[in-house]
C-alpha cells in the first residue's frame, strides 16, 4: 500500500507572550491509501493542531517550525498558500466536531456544496448540483433533493454532520482529517456516522485520520492508532495490538479507565494528576510525574523505539503493562 501522507518530525509551536507552547513536538506517522488511523489523546495533547498543520491552517502566533509533511510524495509543510488552497477541500478535506457550527447558517445546503465543487473544478452548476445530490444519497440522507434546498437550521445535528461528511467527500479527496466528528452527537447517531464514514473510505479508497479522545470509537473503526500526549506520539501500532496489549503506561491508563463488562464491581484505573501545563512541561518524559511505572530513567526524554511492530516512547513498557493487572 502506498503512503498518502508521511509526517515526520513535525513540530508546530505557538509563540505566545507567556512563552512558547510546543503544541506538536516531533510527531511521525504514515497513513496509507484507504487506511483509517485513529489519533487519540486528551484535550490539549496536540491532536487537532496536528490536523490543522497538515491542512496548513495554523494561525499566528503558531507555525510549523520543523519537520516534513509529505502528501502523495509532495512536501506541503509551509507550502505556498495557493498550493494549499488548491489541495484543501479537493485532495485533503476536513470534518469538524460541531455540525451546528460548521455550516454557514445563511446559505442553503446546495449553495455550500456546489461552491465546494466549483472552487476546484470548472463544471456546470447542474453537474455540481447532481454530484452534491449523489453525495448526500451516499451518506444515507433520504430525499436528498429536498435537503439540498434546506437551510442548516432545518436539519438535525446528525443530518448536518452527514452533510459535512458528504461535502468532505465531494471531490473524492485522498485524505480526510476528521476532528472529533462524532463528539457532539448522541450515541446512536454516532454509530451511524462512523458506519457511513467507514463505508465511504472503503468505497473510495480515501485515507482518513480520525481524531478523537474516545477509545471505543477508534477501536471499532481504525486500523492503526496513534496515542498522543503533550505534543508527542507515545504509542503507535495496529489497533488490536495497542488496545489488547498496551505497552505505554499512558495507553494502559486510558484503557484501564474505560468501564468494561469483565471488570464489573472493581474500581476503575485512574491516571494520577492533571494534564501538564504546555508552557512548563516536566523534564524528561512528559508523562513521568503521572506515571505509575516511572523509574529514575524517566528523567530523560525516552526515544522512539520499535517494539513488536509498534513504536513506543517509554523506558519501562513491561512494568507499565503489569501494573494494571
Amino acid at each position: 500500500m502506498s503512503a498518502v501522507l508521511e509526517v515526520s518530525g513535525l513540530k508546530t509551536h505557538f509563540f505566545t507572550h507567556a512563552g512558547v507552547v510546543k503544541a506538536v513536538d516531533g510527531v511521525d506517522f504514515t497513513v496509507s491509501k484507504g487506511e483509517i488511523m485513529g489519533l487519540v489523546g486528551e484535550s490539549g495533547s496536540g491532536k487537532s493542531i496536528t490536523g490543522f498543520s497538515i491542512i496548513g491552517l495554523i494561525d499566528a502566533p503558531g507555525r510549523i517550525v520543523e519537520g516534513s509533511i509529505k502528501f502523495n510524495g509532495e512536501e506541503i509543510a509551509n507550502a505556498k498558500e495557493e498550493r494549499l488552497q488548491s489541495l484543501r477541500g479537493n485532495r485533503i478535506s476536513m470534518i469538524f466536531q460541531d455540525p451546528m457550527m460548521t455550516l454557514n447558517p445563511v446559505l442553503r445546503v446546495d449553495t455550500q456544496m456546489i461552491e465546494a465543487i466549483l472552487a476546484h473544478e470548472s463544471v456546470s452548476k447542474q453537474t455540481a448540483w447532481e454530484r452534491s445530490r449523489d453525495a448526500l444519497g451516499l451518506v444515507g440522507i433520504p430525499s436528498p433533493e429536498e435537503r439540498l434546498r434546506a437551510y442548516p437550521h432545518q436539519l438535525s445535528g446528525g443530518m448536518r454532520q452527514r452533510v459535512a461528511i458528504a461535502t468532505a467527500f465531494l471531490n473524492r479527496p485522498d485524505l480526510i482529517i476528521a476532528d472529533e466528528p462524532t463528539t457532539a452527537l448522541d450515541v446512536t447517531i454516532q454509530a451511524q456516522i462512523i458506519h457511513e464514514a467507514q463505508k465511504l473510505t472503503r468505497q473510495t479508497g480515501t485515507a482518513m485520520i480520525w481524531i478523537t479522545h474516545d477509545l471505543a470509537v477508534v477501536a471499532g473503526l481504525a486500523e492503526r492508532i496513534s496515542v498522543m500526549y503533550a505534543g508527542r506520539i507515545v504509542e503507535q501500532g495496529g489497533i488490536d495490538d495497542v488496545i489488547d496489549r498496551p505497552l505505554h503506561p499512558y495507553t494502559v491508563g486510558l484503557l484501564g479507565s474505560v468501564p468494561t463488562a469483565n471488570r464489573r464491581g472493581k474500581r476503575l484505573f485512574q491516571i494520577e494528576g492533571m494534564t501538564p501545563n504546555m508552557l512548563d512541561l516536566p523534564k524528561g518524559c512528559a508523562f513521568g510525574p503521572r506515571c505509575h511505572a516511572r523509574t529514575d530513567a524517566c528523567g530523560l526524554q525516552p526515544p522512539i523505539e520499535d517494539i513488536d511492530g509498534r513504536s513506543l516512547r517509554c523506558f519501562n513498557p513491561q512494568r507499565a503493562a503489569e501494573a494494571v493487572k
Partner: protein
Amino acid sequence: MSDMTAVTVPVAEPSPKVETPFQRFRAEFFESKIATVALGVFLIIVLLAVFAPWITPQNPYDLAQVSVMDGRLPPGSEAFDGYTMWLGSDGSGRDLYSAILYGLRISLTVGLASGVIALLIGMAIGLVAAYAGGRIEAIIMRIVDLQLSFPASLVALMMVAALGKGVDKIILALVIAQWAYYARTVRATALVERGKEYVEAAQCLGISRFRIVFRHILPNCMAPLIVVGTVQTASAISLEATLSFLGVGLPQTEPSIGVLIANGFEYMLSGRYWISVFPGLALLFTVVSINLVGDHLRDVLNPRLKK
C-alpha cells in the same frame, strides 16, 4: 458493524416546509402591531412623496404657479387659482400641502441615497479592516474613532460649509458624516463571524478569501447592518432638515422639509403656526416611523433577544 442499513432509516424526518430565513424574519416582524403601523405610515409617506406631482394642486418649484398674493393664508383658504389650500400657505405663497410632499421627495431622496452610499462605503471599509487585521485595521479604526468623536451634525455642517449648497453636496456631506457608524458596526460583527467555525470549514474547503469575506461573512453581518441602516437613514433625514433649517442645506427655490420649517419660523410668534408646524409634523412622522421600524428590526434580528 456488518449491516447497519436498517439503522439509517429512523433519521428520515418529516420533510420540513422549506422556509427561507427571510420568510421567518417577515413572520416575526409582523407580530408587532406598532412596527406594522409604523411601516404602513412610512410606506404611505413614500407613496405620497413619489406621486407628489399627480396629487398636488401646485408645483412649488414652478415660480409661475406660485403667487405672492396667496402668501400666509391660513389652512382651508382658497387660493387665487381656485383650489383649496388645506394646510395653508407659506410666506411666498406656496401651498403647504404641495410643498410638504415635494419637500418629502427631497428629504427622502437625500436620506435614502446618503444612507445607502454610506452603508456601502462603511461596509467595505469595515470588512477590509476586520479581514486584514494588524496595522491596516488599526489605522482604519483610529480614523473611525476620530470621526465619531465629533457629532455627526458638526461634521455635516463643516462639510456643507466647505462644499456649498445643492442636493448632491448635501448627500456627499451626509455620507462623510455617517460612513464611520457603518464601518464600526460591520467590523465588530465581522470579527465575531470570522472566528466562527463555518469560516474555518470554508477555508478547509479551499474557498478563496474573497469569496469567504463576501459570500460567507458578509451575509451573516447583515442583521446589525440593516438596523444601523434604518436608524442612520432616519438620522440623515433629520440632519438634512437641520442643515436646511440653519440655512446651509438646500436653497429656497428647492424647499426641503427643513427649509419649510425655517421659513415658518419667523411667523411663529405672529400666530401663523401652520407654516412651521405642518412640515414639522411631516418630518416627525417620517423619522419616528423609520425609527420604530428600526427598533423592531433590532428586536427581531437580535438572536439574544429571541424568546
